[in-house]
C-alpha cells in the first residue's frame, strides 16, 4: 500500500501531487497491477486534505487507464508503468549509488550533484533526438 504526502510549498496542486506519487510508485514497481490504493477516508485521515481532492486524483488515474474503481471495494491499480525494465532497476540503482559515493568523495554537494545529473541527462536526451 502506498502512503501519500503533500508538500504545501511545491506549488503543485494537491490532487496532482497524489497522481504524481502514484505514477512514481508504479514506475519504481512499489505498486503493481491488482494493488489497492488507500481508501479516500484513509488518505484524508492521514494527510488532512479534502476528500474531493483524493476523488479527483483517482478519477484522473482512472482516466489515464492506470487504476479502476470497483464499487464497494475500492480503487485498484490496473496497469504497471515499470514494464520489463524493472528487473534492471536493481543493478542500475547499485551503479548509481556507487557513482553518488564517488561524486561526494570528489567534494560535490547535493545541489552540484543534482545540477550535474540534470545537465548530463539533458545533453543525452538532446543527443538522442539529434
Amino acid at each position, binding site marked *: 500500500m502506498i502512503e501519500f504526502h*503533500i508538500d*504545501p510549498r511545491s*506549488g503543485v*496542486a*494537491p490532487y496532482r501531487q497524489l497522481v504524481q506519487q502514484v505514477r512514481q510508485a508504479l514506475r519504481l514497481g512499489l505498486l503493481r497491477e491488482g494493488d489497492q490504493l488507500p481508501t*479516500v*477516508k484513509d488518505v*484524508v*485521515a*492521514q*494527510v*488532512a*486534505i*479534502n*476528500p*474531493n*481532492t483524493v476523488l479527483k486524483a483517482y478519477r484522473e488515474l482512472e482516466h489515464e487507464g492506470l487504476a479502476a474503481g470497483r464499487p464497494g471495494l475500492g480503487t485498484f491499480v490496473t496497469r504497471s508503468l515499470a514494464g520489463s525494465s524493472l528487473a534492471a532497476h536493481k543493478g542500475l540503482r547499485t551503479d548509481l549509488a556507487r557513482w553518488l559515493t564517488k561524486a561526494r568523495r570528489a567534494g560535490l554537494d547535493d545541489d552540484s550533484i543534482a545540477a550535474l545529473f540534470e545537465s548530463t541527462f539533458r545533453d543525452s536526451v538532446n543527443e538522442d533526438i539529434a
Partner: protein
Amino acid sequence: MIAITAENLGKRYGQRWALRHCALSVPAGRVVGLVGANGAGKTTLLHLGVGLLDATEGSITALGDRPGADTDQLARVGFVAQDAPVYPTLTVADHLRLGQRLNRHWDRDLAAGRIERLGLPLGQRAGKVSGGQRAQLALTIAMGKRPELLLLDEPVSSLDPLARREFLQDLMEVVAEYGPTVVLSSHLLSDVERVCDHLIVLADGHVRLDGAVDELLSTHKLLTGPRRATSSLPRDQRVIRVSHTDRQTTVLVHTTKPILDPRWSVSDIGLEELVLAYMSPTPRDRQTGELAAVHS
C-alpha cells in the same frame, strides 16, 4: 442542494455596517474557507449563519431555512465560536453526557472516541484544561451532534501545529464519512489550501470572492508584459490588481476566455496570491464603478 445562500445581506452595529450587500451561494458538501482581514466581517457572517444575529437587511438561509428557525434546524447546524466556549465547572465527561442529552442525533462513538484519542482526562473540569484542549473539547461536542452544516470560527487558531494537523485530519475524516458542509474561518492559508474546496474572501464587509477553488484558480491569470495602460484590455478581462514599474506592467485578471494577446506572458496563480489580491484594497471597477467581486 445549496447549503448557504445570502442575498443583499447586511448587518449594522450602530452606525457601522459590519457586512453589506453580501451575496453568497455555497453548494452542500463543500469545505469552505472563510478568509479576510481582522474586522472584515467573518465572525458576523458566521453568527448570522447560525442565527445568533439577525440581519439588518437582506436575507440568509442555512440548509434552506432561516438560521435558528426552529429546533429541527438548530439540530442540523453545528457551531463553535472563536473562544471555544465550554462550561468551566463541568467535567469533560459531563460535556459528553450533556451532548447526548441535548442532541437528537448524538454520535457517542465519534465523540467519546475522539476524547480518548486526544487524551483528555474525563474527570477534569473543563475550566482547568489547557486552551488547546478546551478548543478540542468544544469541537468534539460540535462534531458529535453530526450536523449537516458545521460552522467553525477560527477553529485552529489556539492549537499547536501538531494538534492543528490532528484536528484537520479528524475533520476531513468526518467530511469523507458523513459529507457535512463545513465553513471554517482561518488566517492560515496553507490550511485553507489543504482542506478547502470552496473559498469566500471578505474585505471591508463585502464578499469579494465566492466560488469553487479549482474554478477560481483556473479563471484568474497573472499577465506580465511591457508597460501599458490596462484600459486597453479586452472587456472580458476584469482587472483585479495592477502594478507598474517603469518598463513592466503586471496585471491580475479574471477571465473565462483564453488570453490571446502575444505581448503578455501568462502564468497561473496560487491560492495564497489570489486571496491576498482580493483582501487588499483595490481600485473600483473601471466599467461599473463598483468594487470588483467574483461569484462563480
